[in-house]
């Protein structure tokens, strides 16, 4: 269970999150949408404390991450993250990108880590790219390696930070297809995205953000038929 309680974040004088509280139900999929600069990515990055909130608390499985820093890496281990720019380890092959944390964090043996890594890379359709370095992969392939890398840790939740923003339309589709398969298989998925249609397809809830605040958290169907906030209605209108 992931909970943010009265979380605010300031960068110098700029407020990027204003007193945000939200509780993510387990095994549901959330899409965070809103215009650029609304604080979507910052909200996501506060969940695994890549961004440290200025005030407020972040609670994952009853552990207050800000108070209990010692447990931070154990919690991060359980929350996978996929980034806009893939962030693959440039000096490691696809296989080793996935194996790395399995060995260092999960303490698997080399052989066991390799078996797991191949399994997850196969799952994202990259069984024939195991020994390629990131620079030899296309954007879509890189993102799929990144997804496999996060999945291999068997997380309870996955955070996607604009996973397709750096990809062309064709690659976007191949990555979205993979993310769709992760829906309702036992993880909480939280996806920051500009792909509204995709959000509509996969999400159970839409989190609509504007100007550093969450304006509404609404079941997806309801959000697209009758959003609660005026701002969301405008946003949706401009999308069409």
């Amino acid at each position: 269970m992931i909970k943010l309680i009265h979380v605010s974040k300031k960068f110098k004088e700029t407020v990027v999150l204003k007193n945000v509280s939200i509780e993510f139900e387990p095994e549901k999929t959330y899409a965070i949408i809103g215009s650029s600069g609304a604080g979507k990515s910052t909200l996501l990055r506060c969940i695994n404390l890549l961004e440290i909130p200025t005030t407020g608390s972040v609670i994952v499985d009853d552990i207050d991450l800000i108070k209990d820093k010692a447990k931070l890496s154990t919690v991060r281990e359980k929350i996978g993250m996929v980034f806009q720019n893939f962030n693959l380890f440039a000096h490691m092959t696809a296989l080793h990108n996935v194996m790395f944390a399995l060995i260092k964090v999960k303490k698997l043996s080399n052989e066991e880590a390799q078996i797991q890594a191949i399994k997850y890379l196969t799952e994202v359709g990259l069984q024939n790219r195991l020994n390629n370095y990131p620079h030899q992969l296309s954007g879509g392939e890189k993102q799929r390696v990144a997804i496999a890398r996060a999945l291999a840790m068997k997380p309870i939740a996955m955070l996607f930070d604009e996973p397709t923003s750096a990809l062309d339309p064709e690659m976007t589709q191949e990555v979205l297809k993979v993310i769709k398969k992760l829906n309702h298989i036992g993880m909480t998925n939280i996806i920051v995205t500009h792909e509204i249609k995709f959000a509509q397809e996969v999400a159970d809830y839409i989190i609509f953000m504007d100007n550093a605040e969450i304006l509404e958290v609404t079941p997806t169907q309801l959000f697209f038929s009758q959003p609660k906030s005026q701002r969301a209605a405008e946003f949706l209108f401009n999308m069409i």
Partner: protein
Amino acid sequence: MNINFDKIWPYLPQFGQGVLVTLQLAALSAIGGTILGFALSLGGRQGSPVKWLVKGFVDFFRGTPLLIQLAFFHFGLPQITGWIPDLMTSTLIVFSCNSGAYLSEILRAGIESIDKGQIEAAHALGVKSFDITINIILPQALRNVLPAIMNEFITLVKETSVVSIIGLSDVMRKTSLIASATYRYFEPYLITMIIYLTLNIILSFIGKKLEKALRYD
């Protein structure tokens, strides 16, 4: 033409002894400097007191001439401390500190060249900072700055020649002694130059091999 190596040949073993001293000095200082350079570059990423100490150390060893550091350490400090180190010890300490200061700056640049996203991704996977430094940052940083590091080692080999001034019998000092003994200057210095050149060509050859070995693109 007034060139005659006949008088020089009998001194070849002396050159050899000198080369051994030069090699020993360069190799040990390179090892000491590398260890120190790593420690300093990582120390420079820590909180304030450590960071400022590192900065002071680097500024001092980069900002004063090596020869003066050597003379100060070997002749000056014993006056205060009462401990008179042998020549080899003094020079090793000074050279290690000096090249450590330069190497730490090279490594720092390499570390800063690593894209922060990879480090974030590793943190997000729950990898500990130590493992990130050893397995993600350093391998890529080293590979990026390897040419600069080899440059520093080549400089180090050449700079060891200043120890002849405080009296350590490296190849440079042997050469001066041979020159005074034979009244021949062109030949011994030519030989010594070729010796240094050969050492550094070998070194840069090793550097190229290493660069190839560390390549991943």
